[in-house]
């Protein structure tokens, strides 16, 4: 055990020395890895933020009922009584005059609405059903649509569902892209370590002649790969932070235009830890591949 610890300590010290003996190589490798991993990470963060945006919207799906222009008061009462039943959580009536006033006020269309002789908007109900499974929603929307005097029903949750579906595709995309970039990361690390292995050919050769095991030779390079990966992860964090700072003002501007207060969320501590763990692990793996390949190519030292 003490033997083993001593070897680990020695290997780590050697790795650190080698890392700082070629600072420019280290820097550029870290940057390459950082840029590579920051792409899927950025996509992931973007999706997370979009998801949050979607979550801010009415989570409860709503059904809008638009009444026909020639609806009779009796039909109106019938509709109102139907909407008081058990399966409806909440129903809000929006008379057409109120709708027109809201339209004129909220979207700066006062000129247009003022120029209208008749109110072209229908009376409407916003209905919040108790059951929100897609099946129940469609069934209820269909039933309400058949009531006399109802011109049209609209499931307002449709577009959030579509957004969710799009986000699901996005999430799969993140995994796919993430895996591809992890392979790229491994290749970057492998090449960087291979270059360092080649410059240390003599040392490896001599070490083997005087009784070094493969493990002894591999160890400092594995640490080197892992450290290189860690630096790459930190570089990715830097890239993301920079992007976040640059995007903050435009996003804030856009969200005020929509009358919302939306801010980009930076990666959480856990997410950052995962990115660092992944880059460290791929750095290690790339180093393992590079050194093992070289060791086998030079199986019999001369």
């Amino acid at each position, binding site marked *: 055990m003490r033997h083993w610890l001593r070897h680990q300590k020695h290997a780590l010290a050697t790795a650190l020395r080698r890392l700082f003996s070629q600072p420019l190589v280290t820097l550029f490798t870290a940057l390459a890895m950082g840029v590579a991993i920051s792409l899927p990470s950025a996509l992931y963060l973007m999706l997370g933020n979009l998801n949050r945006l979607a979550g801010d919207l009415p989570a409860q799906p709503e059904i809008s009922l638009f009444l026909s222009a020639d609806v009779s008061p009796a039909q109106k009462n019938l509709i109102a009584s139907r909407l008081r039943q058990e399966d409806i959580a909440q129903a809000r009536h929006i008379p057409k005059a109120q709708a027109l006033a809201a339209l004129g006020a909220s979207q700066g269309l006062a000129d247009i609405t003022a120029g209208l002789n008749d109110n072209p908007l229908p009376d409407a109900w916003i209905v919040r059903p108790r059951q929100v499974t897609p099946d129940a929603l469609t069934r209820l929307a269909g039933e309400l649509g058949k009531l006399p005097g109802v011109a049209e029903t609209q499931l307002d949750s449709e577009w959030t569902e579509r957004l969710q579906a799009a986000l699901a595709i996005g999430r799969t995309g993140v995994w796919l892209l993430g895996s591809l970039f992890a392979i790229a990361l491994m290749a970057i690390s492998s090449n960087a370590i291979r270059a360092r292995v080649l410059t240390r050919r003599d040392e490896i050769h001599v*070490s083997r*002649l005087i009784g070094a095991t493969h493990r002894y030779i591999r160890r400092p390079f594995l640490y080197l790969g892992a450290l290189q990966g860690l630096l790459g992860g930190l570089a990715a964090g830097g890239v993301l932070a920079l992007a976040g700072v640059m995007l903050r003002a435009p996003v804030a501007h856009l969200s005020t235009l929509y009358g919302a207060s939306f801010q980009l969320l930076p990666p959480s501590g856990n997410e950052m830890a995962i990115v660092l763990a992944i880059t460290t692990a791929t750095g290690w793996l790339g180093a393992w591949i590079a050194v093992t390949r070289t060791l086998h190519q030079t199986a019999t030292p001369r």
Partner: protein
Amino acid sequence: MISFNQVTKRYPGGHEALSSISLAIEKGELVFLTGHSGAGKSTLLKLIAAIERPTSGVVSVNGQNISRLSQRAVPYLRRNIGLVFQDHKLLFDRTVIENVVLPLDIAGFDRREALKRARAVIDKVGLLKREKSNPVSLSGGEQQRLCIARALVSRPALLLADEPTGNLDAGYAADIMAMFHDFHQVGTTLVIATHDDRAISALGGRTLHLDHGKITECAA
């Protein structure tokens, strides 16, 4: 300690470096390998250290069959063998003492203990004043002594030397041979490949003469 039984080594391309060699070297023996270059001296040493594997026949060292030795076991065999090379194979990115400490690092020695032992062996080869220098700044003879120090630091029972005085002038060569004589006195088994007839006559010991991969002469 070392035995060869009908050992043949053929390199890829067909060159036969050793043909059906049989020999035995006892523990504590001093053996010289002579013969012109290309006669197979280096190959014979490489077979003992498992740097090369025999094409046929059995090489055994310390009772271990080298031909059957797994790749994993080779490093542990080598830790018991000191190797001295004609071209020294020193590492020029570190100091004299770091070169000597390397075998002990590999074997997992405590750092302080390793440095102590390295310093003792550097003193023995007369380089103590240069322990912090880079090997590049050493003369050929000093580099060879450093190489010997590295071979001896793990106190191997067997020392293999391939033309240890090949590049040195007579004075240095005599130094080195005197050192080998001392190791022989304390019971180390030595196998030395050399051209240096004066050294052989000065140290005594057995001489194996190789010619075209065959032992042609066995003089005591």
